[in-house]
């Protein structure tokens, strides 16, 4: 008998026969008055930076002023993020991406491979900046997964703030392996 067959047979024999219905999660669908305000407070509280911009030109200007070195992006105005070998991103100072949406309750942005172009792009640069439309903020993770629905991505990630660790005596340090900062530019359209 293969290990697979052996495991499945043991599970079938031992799993409880009680029906155990799945719960209804509709009760968690609360609306929030000002999702942007909540998103801003939460993300700032976990080390991210939130900045409202008038238009994308203003965003580009801000980033060029505040970051030196190699900047790559899937958006216009910067060196296009290369699709080739991810190791070629090792010297990237800042990567600028467009978030698909964000979540107010935890300050996370959602992005999938189509908007990332290169999976490593969100992790390997020294700094990360994300463009987010103000109308693209949902209240909770339940809303988030409803919005994702049955989307057919290869890879998707929620990112909430800069990479961090508190493994040394619970002292919080920003910039563990991934980006040291995360800037979310919020476009009020």
């Amino acid at each position, binding site marked *: 008998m293969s290990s697979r067959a052996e495991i499945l047979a043991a599970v079938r024999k031992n*799993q409880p026969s009680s029906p155990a219905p799945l719960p209804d999660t509709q009760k968690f669908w609360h609306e929030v008055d000002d999702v942007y305000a909540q998103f801003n407070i939460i993300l700032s509280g976990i080390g991210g930076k939130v900045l409202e911009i008038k238009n994308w030109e203003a965003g580009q200007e801000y980033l060029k002023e505040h970051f030196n070195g190699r900047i790559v992006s899937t958006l216009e105005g910067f060196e296009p993020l290369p699709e080739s070998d991810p190791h070629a991103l*090792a010297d990237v100072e800042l990567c600028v991406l467009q978030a698909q949406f964000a979540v107010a309750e*935890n300050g996370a942005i959602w992005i999938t491979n189509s908007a990332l172009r290169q999976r490593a792009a969100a*992790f*390997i640069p020294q700094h990360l900046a994300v463009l987010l439309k103000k109308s693209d903020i949902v209240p909770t993770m339940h809303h988030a997964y409803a919005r994702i629905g049955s989307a057919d991505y290869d890879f*998707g*990630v929620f990112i909430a703030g800069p990479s961090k660790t508190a493994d040394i005596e619970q002292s919080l340090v920003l910039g563990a392996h991934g980006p040291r900062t995360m800037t979310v530019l919020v476009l009020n359209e």
Partner: protein
Amino acid sequence: MTKTLAQHPDLADRFNRDENRVDWHDQTLWWVRQKRDRAAHTLETDWEALRQAASDIKDNVLANLADYLEQFERAAQANGAIVHWATDAAEHNRIVLGLLQSVGATRMIKSKSMLTEECDLNDFLAQNGIEVIDTDLGERIIQLAEEGPSHIVMPCIHKKKEEISDLFHEHLGTEAGNADPQYLTEAARGHLRDKFLTRKAALTGVNFAIAETGEFVVCTNEGNADMGAHLADIHIACMGMEKIIPQRAHLGVFLRLLARSATGQPITTYSSHFRRPAAGKALHIVIVDNGRSRQLGREEFRNSLKCIRCGACMNTCPVYRRSGGHSYHNAVGGPIGAILAPNLDMHQFADLPYASTLCGSCSNVCPVKINIHEQLYLWRQELTRSGHATQGKKAAMGLAAWVLSNPRIYRLAGKMGRWAMRNLPFSINNRFNPWYKQRELPAPPKASFREWYLKNRVK
């Protein structure tokens, strides 16, 4: 990790020799518990309802696990992942080694996976000529110190920054005596970045595997799972088979609970959903049983398989906080470890269900509502029934049962005890009596309640 046959009380004793360190350990973990409370309270009444929903989803998973595993496998294969099945730790380790050998990899990076600790993968791979670098900062630290993790979320919570500074000075060439966490983390960042960029094989754990879509989710704060997986040519993801959840939408429930319970964060920095391998790369998923199907068949203990490995039960446990994770001599320590470990080996881990006051705090904080403290009590009964209690415990319990079931003997024993407390206090307050450790002998009562009652009752 080297397995030891020492018992929890002995190992806890060793940890307790340094009182300042115990106090520091206790306070550090209690601080994390308080952060968890604040995070939970932000969700107000939803928090308890979410715990119930998570528990209900996991009940549904356990009742339909075989079907969900098959559904997950079909979906994962359709996504282009290759699925492997391992009945036990040895088979898991062989599968991982075989995958590495098939691509000619002799070096691998690994992000946190308690399953691979359970299977002793690192030692096995090292014996077979594979170099493994742990990339979670805490895990890298204990790897350099040649120790196992003492906590499932904060693996080196038992280490002081000065000790880490010494380790880094020795292995990474940092300045002697510089114990600034910022400086040490920066040094580790540079050291591990080089590994990420040069290794062709990456192994990660799995936090949740979705039956409906065949994708799996890995949660980290450091970004080490992603750095490893996206830069390597082969990604091996190892999961205990209980990691399955039915639908993608259920992640809404679990991701709201996980980080809040673990560290008090609203969510981990990265919650990465791996569905298909990137172009030109390979994605392997290893589904491991290693005793889980047996635990599933133990009605009283099966819901320990609902665990999402947040560590909240450890942070709140008065015994864990004061005895340290290594005193549990198992990859997973604390209250949850004490109910999982006896399933793996009743003889070796017979001591663990006793490492508890049964106060119930673990059950109160568990995000999936596992009745941990009740299971600790039930394991004691199970271990005694199946002959795994120690001789001393058996003799003491036999004696107690005899005394308590004979009123005359009970009264006589009480009298003798009170007499001894008055006249021979050293017969009780000596170092051979474990009860007397860190306790003062109380003044003996003049009479038992029964004697007082016989004298004072209204006739």
